[in-house]
């Protein structure tokens, strides 16, 4: 019995275990080792043990600043747009329309993010929205190649990842709890704050984590819509590994990003958990 269980566990976990070991743990270890090494004069990595690369991190301050302002901003913006949408889809729309609208939310995923981002170049570029704004007399506004353009691209690209976890959390919400709140004298807006919002926090947490973590590694959208002016850490990494071939410094930047990300995620989780439901099985979906 115990042996059969052990065997089942081995069978179930081996593929994923091998996968993660080969493609996550091993590369992470390599990156960590490289980050303490030196740049080979002809490019690449030269063995060594120095903290020089870490001391040099401020050289990429702009990339960190952009990532750490636009990733949280993008997450918050996506959350503010996604929550009402998810709420509508989960609690307000009739069953007939629900599936259709849910499909519409994921339709953008059917096209490559690259192509969709190019579409935004046109929309935000000189002949797009700015031309329209100028025509109605709002003056000459630069949109493309600004942090705003990157933000728009980010929110657009990552919205479905935020909508779905929140939708699922709200869908799971026992509607009789809202009736109970109303029965006990709570007007609708207050029962939203006291019941719906706290109980949907697991979805908010999951969605925000997904979006934030993926955003910190983002490089495509800043490259296309930021026009080389709005650099993310992801762009710095592309540059360091592929252009200047400074693998040691690149590794240090990557390690620093991972550490910062872990700290932010841990803090965020604590805050949300305190605010939201504390029951273990609704903690994380």
């Amino acid at each position, binding site marked *: 019995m115990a042996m059969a269980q052990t065997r089942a566990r081995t069978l179930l976990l081996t593929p994923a275990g091998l996968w993660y070991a080969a493609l996550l743990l091993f590369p992470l270890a390599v990156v960590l080792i490289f980050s303490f090494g030196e740049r080979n004069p002809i490019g690449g990595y030269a063995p060594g043990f120095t903290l020089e690369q870490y001391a040099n991190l401020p050289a990429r301050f702009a990339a960190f600043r952009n990532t750490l302002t636009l990733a949280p901003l993008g997450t918050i913006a996506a959350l503010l747009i996604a929550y009402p949408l998810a709420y509508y889809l989960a609690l307000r729309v009739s069953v007939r329309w629900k599936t259709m609208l849910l499909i519409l939310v994921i339709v953008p995923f059917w096209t490559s993010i690259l192509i969709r981002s190019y579409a935004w170049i046109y929309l935000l570029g000189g002949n797009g929205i700015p031309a329209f704004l100028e025509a109605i007399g709002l003056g000459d506004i630069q949109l493309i190649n600004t942090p705003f353009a990157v933000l728009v691209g980010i929110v657009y690209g990552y919205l479905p990842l935020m909508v779905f976890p929140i939708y699922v959390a709200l869908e799971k919400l*026992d509607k009789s709890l809202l009736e109970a709140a109303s029965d006990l*004298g709570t007007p609708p807006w207050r029962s939203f704050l006291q019941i719906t919002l706290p*109980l949907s926090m697991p979805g908010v947490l999951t969605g925000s984590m997904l979006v934030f973590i993926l955003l910190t590694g983002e490089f495509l959208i800043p490259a296309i819509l930021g026009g080389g002016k709005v650099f993310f850490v992801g762009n710095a990494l592309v540059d360091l590994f592929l252009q200047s071939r400074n693998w040691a410094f690149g590794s240090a930047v990557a390690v620093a990003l991972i550490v910062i990300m872990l700290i932010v995620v841990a803090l965020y989780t604590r805050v949300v958990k305190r605010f939201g439901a504390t029951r273990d099985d609704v903690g994380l979906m």
Partner: protein
Amino acid sequence: MLDAYAETGRDMRASAETTENQDAREDHVAEFINVSKRFGAVLAADQLNLGIRRGEFLSFLGPSGCGKTTALRMLAGFEEPSEGCVRINGSDMSAVPSYRRPVNMVFQHYALFPHMSVAQNVSYGLRQRRPRMAKAEIATRVAKALETVRLEDFGGRRVWELSGGQQQRVALARAIINEPTVLLLDEPMAALDAKLRADMQRELLDLQRSLGITFVLVTHDQEEALSMSDRICIMGGGRIAQVGTPQDLYDRPCNRYVADFVGKANILSGEIVERADGCARVVLPSGAEVLVSEEGPDTRRKIEIVVRPEALGIGVAASPGDAALKARITHRTFLGDHTEYLLEAEGIGPVQVNLPRQAERASGRHEVGDEVHILWAAEAGRVLAAEN
């Protein structure tokens, strides 16, 4: 012991009712006035007219889909009547949302807030009041409410740590702490096991007596309704079939639906051959003649009779004075205090007879396959009104 108490309590109320009925201005805490409710093409409630008396324990009884829950939800304000109006304390509730109604509900699956402790759940209603109630006052009332449901030491617990019975007490405490005009109970016992249910029923009754609050219960369990209610409102197909005390409904069911739903009933068809005040001589399909009671003017000749299994007897030979029907015993089930016999009566079909232990001891035990006579005392049966 408690059951005996319930019995006398009910009888007292039943006799009060007769005099009350003569008083046109009854004290109604809530009323349904020509209330109908449509969900799309489905008519969930059809022309309900009902007054709920102050302080009574009223049950809506019926099978699922009969409209009983819809009626309760219209009282709570979760559903708006499509026609007619609901009144509470004499005022029309049409424009009053559920959060402003002086009623509270115990939900079928309790609907406790999972992200709050027991005390936070119980105090929830008080904490919604504006202007705000003093914290100390809330704490006192929570302690008292938890004491009422015997959960004194559970205030700090998480609701999902509690058993089903405890959760239900929390739901009850959360409702009664607000001192509602009417307490609504939506099948509150459905999720409890049989033993716990019996305890809870008794506790609910005690609570209702000590609080003096009007209780309105929705249930599909006829035993629950019979044992707890002052009055029962039997529903079927969105309509009220009959309203009355449990005894009324059992002894004087107005139609086949009610007779069938409340208690066990033999329903036989027959033809009236002679009428005399309150009585009718009826000939059954087998040719046997029985004397049954009948109320009100009725001109039908072909009628249906309800006769309760315990009103019949079994004899080896027909005894004088009783109408007798020849029958063969097909099933015999010993149930402790009484024995259930299922018989196939000649020309009539299956008939159930319940013999109390004593009667069986006197007449001797009957076996499956025995050819016997069903003994029918004068006026044991009752003519059923036509169903509309």
